[in-house]
């Protein structure tokens, strides 16, 4: 696979954490609560969650299952309406951001349309949504190259491995140059080797696109390796436990996971999770 080479080549060295061209807050949540009504009664998925995500940053939502991290991501994406509290995405209602195609979403199981080829899956956002559809700076072909799938344009999803399908999904999410990329456990179903490689590549994509990324995971190592900040959520009901700054230098390589600083941060997150 040539993927790591393709993306590694794009690795732009980052001078400062706050990048040029992006300013202010990408996401603001203010006392967000979400309650679902099920057959067994009302379930509180999120209870008074407040957070601010800087534009251009990489924030990970970490927590045990049932802590509402996917729900929080869906509230930001305007897929779930909060029962209480306010949400602002890029300074406006989430719906406005969605209609402007400022939000890209990567699902847990890639959610490719099996009847479309890799390239046709990437071009889907340009075909639907009427006036919302707007092409980004990069062509769909270039995006497939960016995620290391040059030459696989005409392959159907069933011909691709799990990791390759997830790469197509990332390319699809980037096709309209979203200012905010939301990722819901995108590598959760992959084997560890593929997952490590995609983690490295994702940092490359983040650096080359300059987009804000909110990433959901239940892997401590993934959270430390990828993020600038980790928001730990506690379960039942889902609420903010602690916001941890990850001040590891950029660019990051997988070998960094053996450094004392990395181990210390991972240990700290585990301690917090134990009390969740």
């Amino acid at each position, binding site marked *: 696979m040539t993927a790591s080479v393709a993306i590694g080549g794009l690795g732009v060295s980052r001078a400062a954490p706050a990048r040029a061209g992006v300013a202010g807050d990408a996401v603001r949540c203010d006392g967000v609560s979400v309650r679902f009504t099920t057959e067994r009664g009302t379930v509180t998925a999120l209870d008074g969650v407040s957070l601010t995500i800087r534009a251009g940053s990489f924030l990970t939502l970490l927590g045990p299952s049932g802590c509402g991290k996917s729900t929080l991501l*869906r509230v930001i*994406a*305007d*897929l779930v309406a909060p029962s209480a509290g306010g949400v602002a995405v890029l300074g406006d209602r989430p719906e406005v951001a*969605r*209609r402007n*195609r400022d*939000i*890209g*979403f990567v*699902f*847990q*199981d*890639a*959610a*490719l*349309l*099996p*009847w*479309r080829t890799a390239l046709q899956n990437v071009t*889907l*956002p340009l*075909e*639907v*949504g*009427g006036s*919302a*559809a707007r092409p980004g700076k990069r062509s769909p072909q270039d995006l497939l190259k960016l995620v290391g799938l040059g030459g696989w344009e005409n392959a*159907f*999803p*069933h011909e691709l491995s799990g990791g390759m399908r997830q790469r197509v999904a990332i390319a699809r999410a980037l096709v309209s140059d979203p200012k905010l990329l939301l990722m819901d456990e995108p590598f959760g179903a992959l084997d560890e080797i593929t997952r490590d490689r995609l983690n490295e590549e994702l940092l490359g994509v983040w650096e080359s696109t300059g987009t804000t990324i909110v990433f959901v995971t239940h892997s401590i190592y993934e959270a430390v390796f990828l993020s600038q900040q980790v928001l730990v959520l506690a379960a039942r009901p889902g609420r903010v436990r602690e916001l941890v700054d990850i001040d590891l230098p950029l660019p990051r390589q997988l070998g960094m996971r053996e450094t004392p600083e990395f181990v210390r941060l991972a240990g700290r997150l585990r301690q917090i999770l134990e009390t969740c």
Partner: protein
Amino acid sequence: MTAQVTDTAMSGFVADAEEQARFLARKRQLLWRKRLLPLGAVIALLFLWWAAVVLFDIKPFIAPSPVAVVRVLIQRFDILMANLLPTAVESVCGFLLGNFAAIAIATVFVHKRTAEEAFFPIAVMINTIPVVAKAPILVLLLGNGMEPKIAIAALICFFPTLVNMVRGLQDVNPQSLELMRVLSASQREVFFKIRVQNSLPYLFSALKIAASTSVIGAIVGEWIGSTRGIGALIIQATYAFDTPLLYATIAVGSTFSACFFGVIGLIERRVVKWKSERAH
């Protein structure tokens, strides 16, 4: 030395020309085996049938020998084809009508939940009436021409297609729907880009069932007050104790049914080129 090592290392994955040829020959052999085995079984069964008729001296009107059936197939080919034509027209028309109605109603059901709740039980009830019971009612309603036969063929196709189509349109990956919402897609786009595409494999399994059942529907329709068609010929041959003709008629009807099924299968292969992600 290095070359040799590479050779040995590679042989497990990329075969040399000789190995490749052996592999292809084996593949061809297996393919022929798959084709020839059922053919051999058919020939063996025909031989057994013939032997039994000769050995036990069975009267032709009880069970004719395969030779007698083939003779009728050749000698009375004109009559058989003249009777196949109306049956073919009725079953194909019924197939088109029944499936078109099923697809249209499935579309309405998916968009209007109330309609599904109100009418689906009625569709189930109509489906529980046996074809032989529906046939006389439709003949009384629609007369003696082709119409009641087409109606029966259509009714018999309708239900499996309706059920499969509703499932195919509804049984969509929920993340695909969330994706379409993130993309601010309209209901129409969700229907055509997701639901219709998703329903195609379901639709084609129903169409393949319908291809053979529509022929059965037309034949059953012809049993009641008809003078032409495979169904009418079956009744006439039975009453005349012309059993070789009866067998030949059945053979013609089945062959047509199998061809109809085959055509739908060919269309399916051209339309549905992908495999379900979930079956993966």
